[in-house]
């Protein structure tokens, strides 16, 4: 019940996620995807959560780990298109203050530092 595909636009890798990012479902896939991207040298990652219906605390933890993993490699991980549920979750957990969150793909891409 999770879909994850990545595409590249103007030097930024966009990871489009759909479905649930929860323990045992999406969390592991998210971790693997981020690992693969970092291994391939992709360090500007925009995670599109527009089609994510549900994140639990495990999924939130995985997003935070993705964020710190990318930062540790000198890269940037940003979020795109939060649904109301996901937005509320980031607000309650104060993670909204951690992530750079965007609503528009073009301006999100432009916000990444040039290579």
């Amino acid at each position, binding site marked *: 019940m999770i879909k994850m595909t990545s595409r590249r636009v103007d030097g930024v890798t966009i990871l489009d996620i759909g479905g649930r990012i929860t323990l045992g479902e999406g969390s592991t896939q998210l971790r693997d995807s981020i690992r693969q991207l970092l291994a391939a040298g992709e360090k500007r990652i925009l995670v599109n959560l527009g089609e994510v219906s549900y994140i639990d605390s495990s999924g939130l933890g995985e997003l*935070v780990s993705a*964020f710190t993993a990318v930062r540790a490699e000198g890269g940037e991980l940003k979020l795109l298109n939060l649904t109301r*549920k996901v937005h509320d979750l980031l607000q309650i*957990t104060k993670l909204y203050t951690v992530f750079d969150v965007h609503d528009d793909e073009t301006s999100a891409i432009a916000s990444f530092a040039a290579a």
Partner: protein
Amino acid sequence: MLESRIENVDRAEAAAEEVARAAGFDVDEQHHIAMAVREITVNAITHGNQLDAAKKVHLDFSISPAGLIIEVRDEGRGFDASKLPDPLAPDNLLRQSGRGIFLARAFMDELDLKNLRHGLEVRMAKRKRR
């Protein structure tokens, strides 16, 4: 019977959502209640029963005029809730874990942890808005 397997988390969550609907909560509240049950059941199975399939989780839903009371009980060792770190503290904000009970508490009106002789009991309540 809930054996300590992760699949059972989804079952407990689906049951909670349906019970919340039966209790007359709106869809947002149903989602929040289901999510609280998910988080607490994950804890019961992982931290409490430590994925030991011989240990069970006991789940109780009580629909009353005032709202919904849910109890989740495991067969683990319990823990000292006074030592729960605050996930909003700046030092904890980037930790991978430690948001489960916090979220369940945020989504319910009440959440009490009680160490029993054999296991932890989490009692959650959600009141009906009028």
